[in-house]
């Protein structure tokens, strides 16, 4: 067992952190947030330059062969800087689907484009009735000659408004909640029959509702097995959850640091409020919850690639529960200990709390994942 970063990992961490420290100050972020497309194309180019957009992909397609630990490093740093760019939907989520199920041709075509920053992807998965069930798919793809026709309505597609291409989960057979009969299809965002309504999310990111009406795609659009796509979706989503956990750790670490700092500088009744024992202990509780979250994000990272799907699910779900609980306790305490100013847009703490809270609501909240853990085997058996 080894908790140290390798030299390459350390280098990666340092360079991401340096880039963000140099460029991603709060004012710049606010500027991008208020403009179009709601994030920075300049930063996106810099991520490409640094190799971040190529990170998880195989070197044979121009990738860097990074693994879950590398993704964790980037996502935690992004969480610390509250990065707005669509790294998660493009590189982690859709990238994961591509990595695990894409054909050679698809990979050879798409990965270099992603890597150089020229292609944005989104995973159009959730539907209004599906809540957090990945297998609940009403959108259909029916065979039409050698191609397919996709019909359906996807909702809260993360960064779906600026994506160039969409990977759409659609039912090729079976009933709405069957585990079989789900396929993945690459659809051009500009294809005929695709209409999008983009909007901001609570945390300053973007999302879209996307309607697919009689959208025709060719045979080359199929990603993986069109009758049995669910295992790939689950695998990619589990990896994506591990990445979100790391991002949330970045969020919570900043909330904690900002709060401790505020306790030191803010004076009341003539003394720093950090001298009040009740506030000290609250800050310690935050610290404990943060470190527990960090531990579980590491655990999820370690288990995200586990070949045993049940063990992977169990581990990732457990991490998501811990992250969600820590987001609540650390975030709420962070606001509370700041007092009134914690409620304002000017102070950082609220923004980080919003992002961490939205991470809880993404791909399954605490309740959802607690069900998973409770339904499975013991998490701590030998």
């Amino acid at each position, binding site marked *: 067992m080894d908790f140290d970063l390798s030299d390459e990992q350390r280098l990666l961490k340092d360079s991401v952190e340096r880039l963000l420290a140099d460029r991603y100050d709060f004012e710049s972020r606010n500027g991008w947030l208020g403009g179009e497309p709601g994030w920075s194309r300049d930063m996106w180019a810099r991520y490409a330059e640094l190799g971040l957009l190529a990170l998880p992909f195989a070197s044979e397609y121009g990738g860097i062969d990074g693994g879950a630990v590398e993704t964790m490093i980037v996502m935690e740093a992004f969480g610390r800087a509250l990065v707005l760019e669509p790294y998660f939907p493009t590189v982690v989520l859709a990238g994961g689907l591509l990595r695990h199920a894409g054909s050679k041709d698809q990979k050879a075509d798409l990965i270099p484009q992603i890597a150089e920053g020229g292609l944005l992807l989104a995973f159009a998965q959730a539907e209004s009735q599906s809540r957090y069930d990945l297998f609940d798919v009403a959108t259909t793809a029916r065979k039409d000659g050698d191609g397919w026709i996709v019909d359906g309505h996807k909702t809260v597609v993360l960064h779906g408004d600026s994506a160039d291409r969409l990977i759409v989960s659609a039912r090729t057979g079976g009933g709405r*909640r069957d585990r079989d009969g789900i396929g993945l299809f690459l659809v051009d965002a500009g294809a005929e029959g695709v209409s999008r309504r983009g909007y901001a999310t609570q945390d300053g990111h973007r999302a879209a509702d996307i309607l697919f009406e009689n959208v025709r795609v060719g045979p080359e659009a199929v990603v993986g097995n069109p009758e049995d796509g669910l295992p790939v979706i689950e695998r990619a989503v589990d990896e994506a959850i591990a990445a979100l956990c790391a991002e949330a750790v970045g969020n919570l670490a900043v909330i904690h640091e900002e709060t401790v700092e505020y306790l030191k500088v803010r004076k*009341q009744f003539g003394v720093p409020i950090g001298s009040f024992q009740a506030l000290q202990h609250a800050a310690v509780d935050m610290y404990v919850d943060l470190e527990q979250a960090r531990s579980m994000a590491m655990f999820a990272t370690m288990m995200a690639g586990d070949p045993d799907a049940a063990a992977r699910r169990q581990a990732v779900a457990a991490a998501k529960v811990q992250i969600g609980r820590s987001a609540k306790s650390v975030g709420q305490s962070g606001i*509370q200990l700041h007092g009134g100013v914690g409620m*304002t847009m000017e102070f950082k703490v609220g923004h980080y709390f919003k992002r961490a*809270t*939205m991470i809880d609501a993404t791909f399954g909240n605490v309740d959802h994942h607690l069900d998973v853990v409770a339904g499975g085997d013991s998490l701590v058996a030998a």
Partner: protein
Amino acid sequence: MDLRFTEEEIAFRDEVRSFFRKALPEAIRAKMVDGHHLSKDDIVAWQRILNEKGWAVPHWPVEYGGTGWGPMQQYIFQEEMQRTPAPMPLPFGVSMVGPVIYTFGSDAQKQRFLPRIANIDDWWCQGFSEPGAGSDLASLRTSARRDGDHYVVNGQKTWTTLAQYADWIFCLVRTDPHAEKRQQGISFLLIDMETPGITVRPIQTFDGGREVNEVFFDDVRVPAENLVGEENRGWDYAKFLLGNERVGIARVGVSKQRLQRIRELAGQVTQDDRPLIESPKFREKLASVEIELKALEMTQLRVVAADARRGNTGRPDPASSILKIKGSQIQQATTELLMDVVGPFALPYEEEPDEGSNEPPIGPDWAGPAAPTYFNWRKISIYGGSNEIQKNIIAKAILGL
């Protein structure tokens, strides 16, 4: 000891309930149910409906427009208003400056201001908090220098709720900078927001809301007749004002109404292909909050009954700190339950729609306010004396520590 409502109390409750149901415009009720923001017009309209009925300021002395109700009736009135749900009258006029004026103000002030407060002809806001003061209110620095028959006010107030609509502000100002104790040398001034030198700057809260403001005073000339009571006695009036907040602070009716709504909504979303309200886990979480709320309701009734027993002295029962602490926790718990209900539809951020906007919401139409309310209501355990301060008060005043 009989912990049931008497027949008279039930009759009163039914009367109030049926009035609220009839009199509240449906458009306002609909906004209240899902926690959308109310417009200024909504608030004014409702206050005037109450005033027409004679129920605008039930807790005031009868001579100034009060109803003469006892604590239990006032409790029932508030509870029913919250459950309707109807907008609670803004406290700044009717609960804060109004009682200060009729208790300590001049006759001229009483005549000039009180009827306009009841009818919300004047919209009042509160100028107590200052940047850097927080829970340590007495460290305030806004100054008022006497200059002939005026005071000249300079300084800054903050957290001024809805100052953007306000006609008047009541302020604590420092009139004697050399007073021995910080609490001395403070006066209570009424200031017309139209006076030159006043600037209102909104504070945006991180949920996206624009409720609170900074108010700047730059050589603002205030007629001396707008001083309440005696110069340098303002701290006493402020303590009186803050001590008045008692009945209803727990907002039991608000939480009841929210839980009822959450129950309905959880019947409309599905999880595992059946209504969420049928999930044993969700029901247990709901039941746990309901149990706490029922307990708080009983605790509140005990406080109300104790008030009624010893006469409404205007002194807050220290136990009312329990109401604040537990009430805020429960209100916040309802926002967490609603987050559980909306699930992934917590994400979309929608500006409060303009009246008449016809763009459909993302997700179910009640989902939009869930996350902003979750964020915004964190304030409930901060404002009016944070829960930490409330615990200090209980430790000292009740436990003697």
